[in-house]
């Protein structure tokens, strides 16, 4: 696809000022090759994740299935500045640690697919409930942006959220949005670009292990894992899952499936070749 074919969609709201960078956002639609950066979109169900996805990519999307799963996979592209971003919509989940197929898909992609940025969409009106997933994502990756969505509803409920303090405590950027109105989308895009290009110092909130025996056990296990599976992205996290007796991870390590996961997910990053397309 050439640059000429890229559709440029004016934002429906709040882009009237001349200094707005809205003109620099181009929604590229369905072509998924030649992306400079891969961005994963995670979030609880009913947080407006799909609205954020549509606001970033426009209406044309690329729908398929995750390899070997019945879970729908949606992708789209957008262009910002001189870079192309591939956006991968992960299934809406409350957690990355239980065993549903949805959670497995989301977790495997964040861990092994190593997206350049993971955006966690949270419902500003149910922040406490939603931060569970955000904190779990931060355990796996430090390249994250929290999209504080449904700010319009939060305002209607009289909620005032100190998003700067939230960003300080989480150690990653927090962008308030009302995606239905297009509000905050340009800030979100600019922040994604900053994190993708490593222009943001990341100090993600992580579980603090205090017991010296536990710290020792985790680091021993992590270094063993690293030896067994070179290229394992976050050995500490896998070690913690093993110590929590997560049956899915235990099985993946025992059977050697972990090596396949590392290989499969990093292979998928390149382009649409690994996608199983829907017949439509």
């Amino acid at each position: 696809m050439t640059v000429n074919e890229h559709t440029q969609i004016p934002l429906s709201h709040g882009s009237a000022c001349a200094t707005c960078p809205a003109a620099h956002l181009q929604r590229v639609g369905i072509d998924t090759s030649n992306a400079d950066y891969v961005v994963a979109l995670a979030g609880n169900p009913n947080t407006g994740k799909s609205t954020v996805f549509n606001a970033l990519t426009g209406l044309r999307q690329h729908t398929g299935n995750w390899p070997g799963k019945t879970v729908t996979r949606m992708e789209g592209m957008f262009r910002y500045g001189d870079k192309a971003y591939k956006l991968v919509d992960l299934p809406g989940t409350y957690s990355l640690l239980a065993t549903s197929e949805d959670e497995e898909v989301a977790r495997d992609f964040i861990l092994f697919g190593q997206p350049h940025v993971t955006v966690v969409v949270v419902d500003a009106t149910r922040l406490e409930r939603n931060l569970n997933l955000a904190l779990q994502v931060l355990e796996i990756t430090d390249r994250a942006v929290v999209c504080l969505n449904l700010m319009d509803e939060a305002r209607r409920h009289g909620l005032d959220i100190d998003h700067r303090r939230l960003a300080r405590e989480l150690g990653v950027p927090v962008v308030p949005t009302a995606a239905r109105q297009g509000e905050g989308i340009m800030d979100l895009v600019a922040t994604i670009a900053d994190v993708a290009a490593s222009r943001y110092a990341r100090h993600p909130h992580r579980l603090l292990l205090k017991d010296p025996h536990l710290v020792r056990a985790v680091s021993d296990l992590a270094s063993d894992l690293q030896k067994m599976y070179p290229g394992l992205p976050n050995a500490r996290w896998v070690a913690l899952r093993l110590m929590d007796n997560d049956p899915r991870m235990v099985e993946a390590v025992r059977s050697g499936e972990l090596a396949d996961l590392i290989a499969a997910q990093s292979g998928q990053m390149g382009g649409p070749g690994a996608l199983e397309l829907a017949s439509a």
Partner: protein
Amino acid sequence: MSQSAPGAPRTFPLSELKPGAGAVVARIEFEGLQRRRLLDLGIVPGTAIRAELDSPMGDPRAYLVRGALIALRNAQAARIVMTEETD
């Protein structure tokens, strides 16, 4: 966090909470994925829970947990140990 010291507050299973009444989670007597699932739903020690709705057969029941209604089977609720709300 709950201690089982002498004079500790009375505990009872969540399944025995009267409709409309509230209590606080003392501990969860599950392990592994069932425990994980409950934690992900926001049911952790210290969480205030109110019994909200009964289904016609009385099982499952709906509980208000951190602003969301969550249905639990009595078999699950029986292993969530509650204590009376303090302060």
